[in-house]
């Protein structure tokens, strides 16, 4: 805890940025102010002087604030961030509901005895090899967020985007196997033209099953990422708010 409450509060008021961008800037500034204060203390300044000098070195001018707002104001980022707290919560709830419905409906399709998995053949193992690390990562993040109530943003953020990347890779793997299957079918048809229709039908059955399963897993990973990223952003914002609150109380107390 330190005594930069008024500075951070003022910065928070002037920084017209949507969340969580504003919280991230505040957390970064708070850490640097603490570093500066510690450095001035080490050089022999009294705590009051060290704090005042740290604030002086911060000097976030109106131009600097404008530039920060411009940098963080890309259309995509603004579009996502400007959902607002209520909107974000609503989307989070919708995403969780979609995830549950998807799991309920999708469980049958994902069971090994189900036709789709059987039809997909050995290709499913390749798809699963890509998707399972993503699912395990998503489960571990969900456990951290809801099971252990973790409030450490760096720990929560670490590897989060890997879930999305693995989702994309899972879908890409499904499509690649689909094309490889077509190539195989074409080659087999060339060797035995009388069985061309059978080869093509076999490819259609196996290939479509592989693509459908890989897309299901990719959607599952995508929705998981959406829910986890939304929750993590709220934890980050809560962290910054706590920082401001702590410091406001310190100021009152001091």
């Amino acid at each position, binding site marked *: 805890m330190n005594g930069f409450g008024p500075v951070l509060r003022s910065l928070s008021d002037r920084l017209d940025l949507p969340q969580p961008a504003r919280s*991230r*800037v505040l*957390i*970064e*500034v*708070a*850490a*640097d*102010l*603490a*570093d*500066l204060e*510690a*450095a001035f203390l080490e050089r022999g300044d009294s705590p009051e002087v060290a704090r005042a000098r740290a604030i002086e*070195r*911060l*000097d*976030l*001018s109106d131009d*600097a604030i404008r*530039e*920060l707002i411009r*940098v*963080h104001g*890309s259309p995509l980022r603004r579009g996502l961030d400007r959902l607002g707290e209520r909107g974000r919560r609503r989307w989070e709830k919708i995403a969780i509901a979609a995830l549950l419905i998807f799991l309920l409906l999708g469980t049958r399709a994902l069971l090994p005895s189900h036709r789709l998995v059987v039809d997909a053949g050995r290709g499913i193992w390749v798809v699963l090899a890509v998707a399972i690390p993503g699912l395990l990562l998503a489960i571990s993040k969900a456990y951290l967020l809801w099971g252990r109530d973790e409030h*450490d*943003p*760096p*720990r929560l*953020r670490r590897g989060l985007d890997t879930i999305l990347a693995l989702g994309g890779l899972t879908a890409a793997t499904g499509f690649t196997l689909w094309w490889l299957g077509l190539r195989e079918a074409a080659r087999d048809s060339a060797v035995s033209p009388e069985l061309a229709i059978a080869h093509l039908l076999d490819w259609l059955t196996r290939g479509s099953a592989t693509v459908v399963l890989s897309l299901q897993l990719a959607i599952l990973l995508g929705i998981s990422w959406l829910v986890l990223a939304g929750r993590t952003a709220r934890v980050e914002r809560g*962290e910054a708010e706590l920082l401001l609150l702590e410091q406001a109380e310190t100021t009152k107390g001091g």
Partner: protein
Amino acid sequence: MADRIVEPQELSRSCNELLVMAAIARGAGHGYQLALDVEERSDGAFRFNHGTLYPILHRLEERGLVAGAWSDDSSGGRRRKSYALTRKGEKHLVTERKAWGEFFNRFWPMVEVGR
């Protein structure tokens, strides 16, 4: 010959970005370390207020020249953001050094008097 020459209208911005990127390349990672590195190496000739530093860092990050990563500070329990050059940033730094070299090669003859 450099690939590009620094334009007079971008002197301040380009100079600040180059100073920050060079400090990051030397290993300074956090905002405070970056400001200190630049100030100490230049004997106080170049001094960044943190207010100036954040827009530069965030702009470089937006352009993909540096990558910011959050880390824990075990001693103070505070989260801090540290920066590292990306591959694109390393290449950009080389280009900018050359551009500034070329700029000074052309600039000094222009301001010399009495020859």
